């Protein structure tokens, strides 16, 4: 029987995921005042879910491989594997549909079509797969749910973590609901100047650098060409958050793989991994990213890749040191004794044990990635076609907003960056404390000034919290 909580999670998160994905690709040209009918039609328009074909091919492969492996090994969750197979089929058909262009099939093609239908189908089948996985592995599902619930209970008690989560939800909703908060037409300077009624509101045109007024689009004033700063601010949230999250994904995958491999293999392979990490650790991040961004062109996909491949060494080092600890544990020896291969041990024994660390670290890396994107965009290396908070600051700086002084153009993006970075930092430290029992103990022992003596006594019996800090890496 599937655990009750998991059933609730699947039933809530599957539709929520469909809505979120639809919102993130919602057509930009639907004006706000177009009415409910147009909004609903927007959700089923051809523009929704127009991902390039290779994305679906990759995701489809990611579903196909475990399905085939599971069926070949005759694993317990047979239906789950069959559902996964179906999922990969759906994705492959979608990839085929997307790739059909006039000149034959192309990997980067994104043909208009009922993408929304495929997307909804894929996510729904994914939900069904999770359901059957839980049916096939009841004890693991039970453990998973119980762990999740325990972590959430600990996390909830951490005020910093909850504040971070709250801030993040606000900005996440702003990013997702951007098409309903500000008309994208306001980001086109020509539309503003033309004044041909393509914008939906009757807001009078203000000159450049007009201070804030009470009219909605002028809450944050106007920028150097008379565009609404509020509209820029809202649409910027999308790029800033997306770049941060996707760059972190790349960086974490790279860092975790290199960290685990170089920690697990002690001999020359490990040495190579460590040297590589060392070299990348001493190469100053900003000059390297500047060189790459200057050479590789300027769109946000390139920025994501650049931040991803330059920010992994920190993760790799942390993961490596934890892998060194896990490698010496007894169950690894046991696994090796019964003839498990290196790949199996790393995936099934080392990874689950270092995973909490990777997770907490990932949340912190998001904060760094968002700051990195802001920095690159500020230096003028961002995507000139899409606004991000960094790009806004770049325009503000290069057009002399500080000398005017146009505080309404400088403050909003900066404060948003601080809040989002703080939110991720808070969440990262909260997860650190929740997932690492050692840290939790220290929190408790150093709780109040009055209990300091007690904490000292505890430190005598335990190894002492400061001992591992001794030598530099």
């Amino acid at each position, binding site marked *: 029987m599937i655990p009750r909580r998991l059933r609730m999670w699947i039933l809530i998160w599957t539709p929520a995921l469909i809505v979120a994905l639809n919102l993130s690709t919602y057509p930009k040209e639907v004006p706000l005042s177009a009415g409910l009918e147009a909004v609903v039609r927007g959700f089923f328009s051809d523009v929704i879910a127009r991902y390039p074909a290779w994305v679906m091919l990759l995701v489809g492969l990611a579903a196909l491989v475990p399905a085939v492996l599971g069926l070949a090994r005759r694993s317990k969750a047979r239906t789950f594997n069959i559902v996964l197979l179906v999922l990969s089929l759906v994705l492959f058909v979608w990839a085929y549909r997307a790739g059909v262009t006039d000149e034959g099939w192309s990997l980067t093609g994104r043909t208009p079509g009922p993408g929304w239908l495929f997307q909804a189908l894929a996510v729904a089948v994914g939900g069904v797969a999770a359901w059957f996985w839980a049916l096939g592995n009841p004890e693991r599902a039970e453990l998973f749910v119980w762990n999740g619930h325990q972590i959430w209970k600990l996390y909830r008690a951490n005020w910093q973590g909850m504040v971070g989560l709250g801030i993040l939800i606000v900005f996440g909703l702003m990013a997702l609901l951007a098409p309903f908060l500000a008309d994208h037409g306001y980001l086109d300077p020509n539309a503003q100047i033309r004044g041909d009624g393509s914008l939906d509101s009757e807001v009078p045109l203000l000159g450049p650098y007009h201070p804030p007024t009470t009219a909605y689009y002028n809450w944050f004033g106007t920028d150097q060409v008379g565009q609404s700063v509020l509209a820029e601010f809202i649409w910027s949230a999308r790029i800033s958050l997306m770049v941060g999250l996707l760059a972190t994904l790349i960086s974490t995958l790279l860092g975790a793989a290199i960290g685990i491999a170089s920690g697990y293999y002690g001999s020359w392979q490990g040495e190579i991994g460590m*040297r590589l990490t*060392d*070299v990348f650790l*001493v*190469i*100053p991040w*900003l*000059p*390297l990213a*500047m*060189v790459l961004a*200057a*050479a*590789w062109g300027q769109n946000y996909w390139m920025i994501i890749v650049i931040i991803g491949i330059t920010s992994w060494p920190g993760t790799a080092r942390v993961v490596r040191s934890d892998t060194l600890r896990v490698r010496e544990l007894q169950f690894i020896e046991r696994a090796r004794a019964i003839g498990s291969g290196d790949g199996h041990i790393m995936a099934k024994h080392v990874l689950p044990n270092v995973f909490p660390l990777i997770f907490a670290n990932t949340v912190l890396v998001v*904060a760094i990635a968002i*700051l990195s994107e*802001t*920095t690159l965009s*500020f*230096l*003028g*290396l961002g995507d000139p076609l899409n606004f991000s908070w*960094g790009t806004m*600051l770049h325009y*503000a*700086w290069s057009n002399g*907003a*500080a*000398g*005017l*002084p146009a*505080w309404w153009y*400088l403050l909003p*993006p*900066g404060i948003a*960056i*601080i809040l989002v*970075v*703080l939110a991720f*930092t*808070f969440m990262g430290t909260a997860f650190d404390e929740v997932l690492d029992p050692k840290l939790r103990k*220290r929190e408790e022992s*150093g*709780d*109040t*000034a009055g209990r*300091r003596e007690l*904490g*000292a*006594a*505890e*430190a*005598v019996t335990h190894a*002492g*919290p*400061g001992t591992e*800090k*001794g*030598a*530099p890496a």
Partner: protein
Amino acid sequence: MDKRRYFAKKIANALLTVILVASFNFALFRILPGDPARLLMPKGKQPPEAVEKQRKTFNLDKPMWQQFIYYWGDTIQGRFGISFSEKRPVTEVVSERIWPTVVLVGTGTIIATGIGIFTGVFAGWRRNSKYDVISTNSGMVFYAMPTFWFGLLMIMLFSTYLRWFPTGRMSEPGADLQGMEAFVDLIWHMTLPVFTFAIAWVGEYHLIMRSSITGVMNDDFALTARAKGLSENTVLWRHVVPNAMLPTVTIVMMNIGFVLSGAILTETVFNWPGLGLLAYEAMTKRDYPVMQMVFLIASVAVIVANLIADITYYYLDPRVQA
């Protein structure tokens, strides 16, 4: 460990990393898209003979392994080519920019470490007190704040509204001041950039110092010191702080290396004529020879700083010597 062996090991390590970083530098400017000979020349149409000549002077017509050897020869002899935005040798362009960066970064680091360590010690010692909560959370805000944004705010507040300080540069263009006047003028121009730079690091040093104080303040030696009947102040400043300084000193040392490249943002915002501004200008003009050298200097600075940190650590922490 034996002193000579320890140093030899650290120095060998640093040298190996320098070699690897320089090789990476070689590779980086060759995997960039486009013909490297064209990259090393100004933008716009160039006669084919000139491109050929450029290819010859930089040995780009030779096979890769020979290029690699020539690259090393050039690097060791300090030949980095001609900056094509200034039409002067890169070494010359770079060397006159080092001094302003050292002034800015040096002053900023001293101020940041001073303030950060001091506030961090009290926050760690009085953990969870009102002072700790306020100072640590503002430390987090400083840490999360983009440096350049804070710099812009400073310019807006102190230069535009209050008109106390200039908006940038090291001195007024055309002004020729001597002696004391020049020094006062420098201080006047430095205040905002140094403050901006310091604020960016105060948060980090505060957090590091705080966590290392909480890490050691319950150790055995602190308990012993208290048991001897020493006052809380003596325990803190004579016993806990020296021990907690160890990791902080290492991190400060290591940061000094990164600080050279971290100054890019402060220098860009304040138009401070240092290495960071040079890197930014080189990037906007696609001046690859200059970028290459700045990149190398910034990386070597980090390695040297790491080495110095290791050596200092040897003298500070007797446990390493044992």
